[in-house]
């Protein structure tokens, strides 16, 4: 058996953190796959690192652009961005929030 790296309790916590909700079938499948993947990933812990190995962020050292000059160039069509909203009032993006009283949504 693959070790149960992700117990049902831990899985439920991850699902909440990930802002998801799952059917029982989805949960079953995903938790099994997660455990399989973590079994494969376990190999990492057995790898002996050579002395002084630093983390690599992009593989190679990026020779990228220097930071840009500070210039204001307005995007020509900000209305097109608002128009993408599932719901807007022409000025603001709108999201439902009936429950909020004094307490911050968390």
């Amino acid at each position: 058996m693959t070790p149960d790296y992700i117990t049902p309790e831990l899985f439920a916590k991850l699902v909440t953190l990930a802002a998801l909700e799952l059917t029982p079938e989805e949960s079953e499948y995903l938790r099994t796959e997660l455990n399989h993947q973590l079994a494969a990933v376990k190999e990492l812990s057995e790898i002996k690192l050579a002395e002084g190995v630093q983390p690599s962020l992009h593989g190679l050292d990026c020779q990228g652009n220097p930071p840009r000059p500070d210039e204001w160039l307005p995007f020509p069509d900000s209305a097109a961005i608002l128009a993408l909203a599932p719901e807007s009032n022409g000025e603001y993006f709108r999201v439902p929030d009936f429950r909020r009283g004094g307490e911050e949504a968390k």
Partner: protein
Amino acid sequence: MSSIQLSAYQIAQKVRAGLLSPLEVLEDHLKQIAAVDGVPGSLEPKTSDPAEESKVHAFIEVSADLARRQAEQVRARLERGEDPGLLAGVPVSIKDIFCVQGTTTTAASRILYNFRPPYTATTVERLAQAGALIIGKTNLDEFTYGSSSESSAFQPHPNNPWNTERVTGGSSGGSAASVAAREVPLSLGTDTGGSIRQPAAFCGVVGLKPTYGRTSRYGLIAFGSSLDCPGPLARDVRDAALMLQVLAGADPKDSTSAVAPVPDYLAALEEGVRGMRIGISPDYDHITYPDTLTGEMSIQAIQPEMNTSVRAVAEVLAQLGAEIVENVPMPNARHGIPAYFVISRVEAASNLHRFDGVKYGYRARKPALDLSELYRATRAEGFGLQPKLRILMGMYVSAAQHSAQYYQKALRVRSMIRSDFERAFDPNGAYRLDALLTPTTPTTAFRRGEVMGDSVLMQYSDQMTVAGNHAGIPAVSIPAGLDPQGLPIGVQFFGMDFREDIILRAAYAYEQATRDAEWRAVQPQALRGSEVKA
């Protein structure tokens, strides 16, 4: 003769010389799409017509109007005596992970089913500037998360033109299929762990993953931001070089795009391989794969034709004057997938945070009382299983208490994977390679449904390719024959940072030397129908 028989290079030459009308080229390719592609991928697929089973289904959206406007512009530029660009009149398909203004950009996910970006990816912009005709958006694994293109929310998924019972590979499966089925001569794909090269190998086309930063990521919907690389899929090496020529170069909108100069890739092709040192590694003739039940790693053989093809390619190159360097150790290659499981998932989970039903795309039908309900319902309904799996994996391994064990460790393993290549390519080292030759995939194209669902097995089909993404180096997969079932075999050349010219040169030399090989005359199944006059 229909222009679908021409390479991109030939089309552009003829169009530029006024011998071929860009509109005619476009209509030829639209006709081919109509003939072989079948219904486009959709969220609500119609009840299955058995005839659709043998179609390619490379496209989610065919942008005929956009392409016609572009063809018209190319014609107008020619009439005004202006240079219409290196890809004048060449139809190009775009993996539907690139934002293109005027198209719907779905990432093959319900959560972006209606997303019409008000901006265009730099790579696509450059193609259009060079006179290419953006003919449509190709299907892929949802958010590129897969190696078969089956996980698209837009069904039917692409089928392999060589055998429509088989997968195209992925995630750039629609792109590879569209090129193989002569729907386009060129396609723009992305490669995060092998997503250009693996489907290229499965579909018998050329796929190039450039050096990280050689091509701009602006407008590419991110998977693993430190690994993602846009690149060309083409039917021959010269076309891949031509397309890279157009794509390559620094982009002020992408801080990680490289300022390194862009060489003349086409000119480099002709220089041959005499004196070139090409390595073969015993660490690439098998894969190391975990038992799903025990998690124990075991060495598993790969399909034998993969290794014989590598040998055969090496032999051809040796005859052309290259020096074959045996036994190049790549001891960290086997860690590629475990490290990838961590790094790509951490980045993917974060990159998917923005899909929340607030700003664009899908919002849950179910009424929500507050934000967290809205988020959960939207993401539950909008994402398929693969994004959900990657989010959960990414959340787990980047949690504060696990980060050192998984994420930080994986980044160090990534350095070690890179150091294998540095050692092999070191001009003062023991191997002094110009390129490393390996199989592209452990097997040829697998059957539809065969691997789908087994996320670990699916991921391991990238074991031969993923090291290039970790290291950031370029790699190209080229066709090198057919297996006994008539399925294409791909081999791959890895190269040094920004030396796409060298690996393209090796690939081109092999391709030219085997131009008349018998297997090259075999057409994909999808082209053998009566509708295509080869």
